[in-house]
C-alpha cells in the first residue's frame, strides 16, 4: 500500500486556494477613493430630492472632527460645538479627534458616514489632508461645514468660516511698527513661523512680505521655522537667545505666528535683560494678555472669537437641517481683533 506523499498535496492546496481567491476577488469592486458621484460642495442649492437635512429617522446626525484637539483653540472650539450642538433640536453630535493624525481621522469619519451621518463639521482641518474625507462626503451626498478650514474658498466645503490671515498679518505688523517708534525702515525683525500649519504658514509669509516692503531687515535673512509646535516655546526661545548672542544690538522686534512661540521669544528677551525688543503673536491667550499688561516685550496679539464662529456655523447648519439649503457664500472671512496695551484691560480671553 502506497502512502500518499504529503509534500505533493501542498502545490495542489496552493493552486486550489489561488483559484478560490481569484473567484472571490472577481466579485469585488475596488474603490480608489479618487472618483465618484455626489452632490456635496454645491453652494446655494438644496440637495436634490431632500426637503430637509435630517435622516429618515428625523434626527440630524452631525459627525464633527478635528485633528487639532491638542491645541487650546481646537479643544475650546470643538468642545463648545458639541455642547451647543447638543442643545439644538433633533441634533445628534459625535466628535472624533486626533493629534494631527489624518489617517486616523479619515478612517473614523468614513465610518461615521457609513453609519448615516447627515452632515460633517470639520474643525480646523488641513485642506491638504482631507481629500479622502471630502470625496467620501461627496459620494454620500452630505455637506461639510468647516471652521478655519483654509485660507481660500474650498468647493468641497458647504461653508468655511475663518479669520482673515491678511488682516492678522497687517494688524500685527502694524503693531510692531508702532512699538518700534513708527517706522520699520532699517529695523531688524525676526520672523518665526511653522509652515506645516496652513494658517500660520499663510500669515507668517504675508507678514514677512509686509515687513520687507516696509524696509525691515529680516533677522537671519529668512524666516525661522519651528519644527514641533509642542516645543514651539522652547524653540522660539532658543532662536532669539542664540540670535541675541550673535548680534547683541541687532534685534528690534520679533513677529511670531502664534502665541506659544511668541511667549518663548518674550522669555528669551527677558532673560537677556532687554526692554527694547517687542513681540507680537496670534491667539490672544490669557497668558499672553497678562504679558501684554506688564508693558514688557509682549506688545500685541490677535484674538479670534471661535465661540461666535461656532454660533454662526450652527445657525447655517440649522438652515440645512430645516430645508436642506446651503449658503450662497461658501467662504466667510471674519476680522480678528488686535489686542494691545490700549484695550487689553477690557478684553476677556477665552483661550
Amino acid at each position, binding site marked *: 500500500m502506497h502512502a500518499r506523499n504529503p509534500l505533493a498535496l501542498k502545490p495542489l492546496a496552493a493552486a486550489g486556494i489561488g483559484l478560490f481567491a481569484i473567484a472571490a476577488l472577481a466579485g469585488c469592486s475596488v474603490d480608489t477613493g479618487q472618483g465618484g458621484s455626489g452632490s456635496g460642495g454645491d453652494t446655494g442649492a438644496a440637495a436634490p430630492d431632500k426637503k430637509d437635512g435630517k435622516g429618515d429617522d428625523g434626527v440630524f446626525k452631525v459627525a464633527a472632527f478635528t485633528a487639532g484637539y491638542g491645541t487650546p483653540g481646537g479643544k475650546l472650539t470643538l468642545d463648545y460645538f458639541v455642547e451647543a450642538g447638543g442643545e439644538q433640536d433633533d441634533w445628534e453630535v459625535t466628535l472624533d479627534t486626533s493629534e494631527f493624525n489624518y489617517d486616523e481621522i479619515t478612517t473614523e469619519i468614513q465610518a461615521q458616514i457609513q453609519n448615516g451621518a447627515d452632515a460633517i463639521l470639520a474643525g480646523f482641518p488641513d485642506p491638504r489632508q482631507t481629500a479622502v474625507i471630502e470625496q467620501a462626503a461627496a459620494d454620500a451626498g452630505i455637506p461639510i461645514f468647516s471652521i478655519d478650514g483654509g485660507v481660500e474658498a474650498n468647493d468641497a466645503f458647504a461653508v468655511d468660516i475663518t479669520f482673515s490671515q491678511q488682516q492678522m498679518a497687517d494688524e500685527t505688523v502694524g503693531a510692531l511698527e508702532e512699538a518700534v517708534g513708527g517706522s520699520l525702515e532699517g529695523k531688524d525683525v525676526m520672523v518665526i513661523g511653522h509652515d506645516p500649519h496652513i494658517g500660520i504658514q499663510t500669515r507668517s509669509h504675508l507678514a514677512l512680505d509686509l515687513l520687507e516692503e516696509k524696509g525691515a531687515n529680516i533677522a537671519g*535673512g529668512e524666516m525661522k521655522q*519651528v519644527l*514641533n509646535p*509642542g*516645543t514651539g516655546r522652547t524653540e522660539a526661545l*532658543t532662536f532669539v537667545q542664540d540670535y541675541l548672542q550673535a548680534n547683541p544690538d541687532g534685534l528690534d522686534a520679533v513677529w511670531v505666528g502664534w502665541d*506659544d512661540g511668541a511667549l518663548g521669544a518674550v*522669555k528669551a528677551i527677558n532673560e537677556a535683560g532687554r526692554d527694547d525688543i517687542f513681540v507680537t503673536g496670534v491667539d490672544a*491667550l490669557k*497668558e499672553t494678555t497678562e504679558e501684554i499688561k506688564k508693558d514688557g516685550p509682549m506688545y500685541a496679539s490677535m484674538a479670534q472669537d471661535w465661540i461666535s464662529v461656532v454660533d454662526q456655523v450652527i445657525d447655517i447648519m440649522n438652515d440645512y437641517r430645516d430645508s436642506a439649503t446651503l449658503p450662497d457664500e461658501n467662504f466667510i472671512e471674519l476680522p480678528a481683533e488686535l489686542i494691545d496695551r490700549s484695550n487689553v484691560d477690557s478684553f476677556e480671553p477665552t483661550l
Partner: protein
Amino acid sequence: MAQTDTLTVQAVAPARRKSFTQLIWQSSTLVALVVLIVVFAIASGGRFASPANLTNILNAVAILTIVAVAQTIVMVVGDFDLSVGMTATMGGATAGALQVAGAGMAPSILAGVAVGIAIGAVNGALVAFLNISAFVATLATMTAVGGLNLLITDGTNIYGWPEEFNIVGQMRINGIPAPVIYAAVISVVVWLVLRFTTLGRRWYAIGGNAEVARLSGVSVRPTRFLAFVAAGGLSALAGVVLVSRLGSAGPHAADDRMMFAVAAVFLGMTLLRSGQANIGGTLIGVAIIGVVQNGLNLVGINTYIQQVLIGLIIIGAVLLSGLKTRNS
C-alpha cells in the same frame, strides 16, 4: 631524594603603549566635538566661543542632559526607554498643575518626581518581571503618558503658579544658570553610582550578560526594575526644571527630548571600546548636539538643515564605533 618541581613562567611581552593615531581613533567622538567647536568659533567670528554663548549652550542642553543621564542608566542594563520624554513632560505638568491648584512648591515638586518614579516602576515591572521587550513596554507607556499629559494640561499650557517656583529654573548662581548646576550634580551623582557602588556594578553586569550576572548572584529582576525607576524619577525631575524655566507647562513640553537623549547616549557609547553606555560619553554626546544646534543657529543655518545634519552626525558616529569594534 626530594622531588622538586620547577615552575616555569612564560616571559610576557611588555604592554605596548597606544600610538597617537590609535588614541585619536579611539576618542574620535571627542575629537569631533573639538573640531566642531573650532569650526563654529571660526565661522561665527568668535561669538561661538564667548563665555556668554557657552553658558547659553549649557543652559539649552541642561534638561536634555538630565534626560540623557536617565536614558544612560537604562541602556547600561541593556534596555531602552522610549518614555523618558513624555515622563519629563508629565513630571513638569503635574508639578505645575498642583501649584496652580494651591499645593505648596515642595510637595508639588515631590509629586512631579513621584509620578516619574511611578511610570518608571510600571516600565520596570513590565520589562523586568513580565519579560516584555523594553521597546514595546516603554512604547506603550509613552503612548499612555502622552494621553495623560493632555488630560492634566487640558490640551493647553498651565501657568500662573507662585513666582518662587520660577526661581528654581531661572535663577543663576555666580552667573551659572540653575538648570546647568542641576544637570552637573545629577551627572556626577549618577556617574559615582555607576562607577563606585555595588548597584552600579550590578547594572553593568546585567548589561554585559544578564545570565552570567544571575549566575554570579545578582538579583537581575529587581536590579533591572530599579534602573527604570531611577530613569523615570530623573526624567520627571528634568520636566520640573523645564517648566520652572519656561514659566509654563505644556502638554508636549519635553516630548522631543527622548530622541535627542537616545542620540546622545549612542554618541557616548562610541567612546568606549566596549561600546557600553557611560555617563562621560553621554555628556560628550549632549555637548555635540548642543554645539551643533547652537553653532548652526549662530551662522544662520535653518532648522530643517540642522535636523538633517544632526542625523548624519549620529549615523557617522555609530558607523565609526562599528569600525572601531571590528578593528579591535
